C-alpha cells in the first residue's frame, strides 16, 4: 500500500511566477518569502516523494460558470499549464498518474463525494507555482493528481466538507496498491482580499492561529462557516480550505517540519508549512 510521507502548504500568488522567471528570489522584497523553503527542500530530499496529490483552486483557466464543479479530480496522463491572461510564463506540462487518480475517484464516489472526473484538465498558477517553490529544479520529479475545490462561485463547500474530502483522499491513498511515497499539497491563502472596498484585508492573528491549529487541533477551522471565514480572512483568504483538505489527508498525528509566515507578497499574507506523518 502507498505511504503518505507528509503534507505541504503554500500560498500561490501569481507574481511568484514572475519572480522565479526573473531570478530575483534574493531581492529584499522576495527574500523573506523564499527563505521559507530551503528547510523544506532538505526534508523532501530525505523523504523523496514519488507522487504529489494537490488540493488547489482554479482561477478561471479550466472551469467557467457554465459548468462549475464543487470538487474536480484530474484523471489525465498529463496536465498542461496555459496562458491565464496576465503574462506569467507558462510552465511545461506535469505528469499525471491515472492509476492513482481513478483509485481516488472510485473511493470518493463510494464515500458519497460527488466529484467531477477530468480526463483533460488545464492547471493554473495555484497548481503549478507550488511545484516551482517546493522543487525549484528544472524538471518536476513527482507524478501528480490535481484536486480542484471551488472557491470562485458561492455556495462553496464548507470547511468541514473540505476537511472530510481530505480525509477520504488520504484513506484512498493509503489503500492504493502501490509502494510509492505520496506527499499531499494544499495551495492558497492565507488571508487576503482582492476585491471591493475591503481590498487589502489581512488577518495575521487568525492566520497564525490557523497554522498552529493544523498541528494541535486540525478540526479547529471546521467550526467556521464559509461566510465566517470570508469575514475573518477575506474573499480569497477562504482558499485556506486547501490547507485543511491537505491536513485531513495526513491522518491523526503529524510532526512539524518547517513553517514560515510573511506579510505581504502582493496583497497576500503568505504562509508556508511542511508536516511529516511520522
Amino acid at each position, binding site marked *: 500500500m502507498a505511504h503518505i510521507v507528509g503534507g505541504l502548504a503554500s500560498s500561490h500568488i501569481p*507574481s511568484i511566477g514572475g519572480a522565479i522567471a526573473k531570478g530575483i528570489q534574493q531581492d529584499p522584497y522576495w527574500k523573506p518569502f523564499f527563505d521559507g523553503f530551503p528547510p523544506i527542500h532538505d526534508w523532501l530530499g530525505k523523504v523523496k516523494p514519488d507522487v504529489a496529490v494537490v488540493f488547489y483552486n482554479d*482561477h*478561471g*483557466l479550466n472551469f*467557467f*460558470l457554465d459548468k462549475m464543479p464543487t470538487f474536480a479530480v484530474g484523471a489525465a496522463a498529463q496536465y498542461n499549464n*496555459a*496562458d*491565464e*491572461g*496576465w*503574462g506569467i510564463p507558462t510552465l511545461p506540462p506535469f505528469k499525471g498518474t491515472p492509476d492513482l487518480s481513478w483509485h481516488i475517484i472510485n473511493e470518493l464516489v463510494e464515500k458519497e463525494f460527488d466529484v467531477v472526473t477530468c480526463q483533460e484538465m488545464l492547471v493554473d498558477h495555484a497548481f503549478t507555482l507550488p511545484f516551482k517553490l517546493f522543487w525549484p529544479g528544472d524538471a518536476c520529479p513527482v507524478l501528480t493528481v490535481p484536486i480542484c475545490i471551488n472557491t*470562485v*462561485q*458561492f*455556495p462553496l463547500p464548507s470547511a468541514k466538507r473540505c476537511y472530510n474530502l481530505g480525509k477520504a483522499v488520504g484513506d484512498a491513498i493509503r489503500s492504493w496498491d502501490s509502494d510509492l511515497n505520496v506527499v499531499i499539497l494544499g495551495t492558497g491563502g492565507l488571508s487576503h*482580499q*482582492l*476585491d*471591493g*472596498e*475591503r*481590498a*487589502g484585508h*489581512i*488577518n*495575521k*492573528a487568525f492566520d497564525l492561529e490557523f497554522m498552529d491549529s493544523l498541528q494541535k487541533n486540525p478540526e479547529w477551522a471546521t467550526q467556521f*462557516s464559509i*461566510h465566517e471565514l*470570508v*469575514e475573518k480572512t477575506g*474573499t*480569497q483568504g477562504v482558499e485556506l480550505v486547501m490547507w485543511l483538505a491537505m491536513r485531513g489527508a495526513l491522518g491523526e498525528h503529524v510532526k512539524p517540519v518547517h513553517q514560515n509566515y*510573511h*506579510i*505581504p507578497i*502582493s*496583497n497576500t*499574507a503568505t504562509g508556508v508549512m511542511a508536516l511529516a506523518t511520522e
Partner: protein
Amino acid sequence: MSHKPEPIFGTTLFDGDQAQKGYALNKMCYSFNSADNRNTFKADEEAYMLQYGLNAQQADAIRTRNVLGLIAAGGNVYYLAKFAGILGLDVQDLGAAQTGMTKEEFKAKLRAAAHQ
C-alpha cells in the same frame, strides 16, 4: 440561500445573484485567457462587448475601467483579473482604485498588517 447572511463591509460575495447578473461580463473576461481574444478586444472594445452581450452597466464599467462598477455589475474578481491584465494593472493598482488610496498608500496599508 433564501436568507442571505449579514453583509461584510466592502465585500460582495459572488453568489447566485451576482453570477446571474454578471454572466456575460465574466464570459467575456474568461475569453481573455487567449492572447488572440485579448488582441481582438484591444482592436475594437465596443464590438467585442457587443459580441458578448454586455449590458449597459457592464459596458460602461469596462469603458471607464471602474473596478467597483465591474463588481457591482456582477463581475467576479478571478475573471476581472484577466481584464486588469490587459490594462497592465496589478492587484495593488486594483486595491488602490477600490479603496480610494494611492498605490503607495495601499502598499503601506499591506505592510502595516505585518504589525497587527
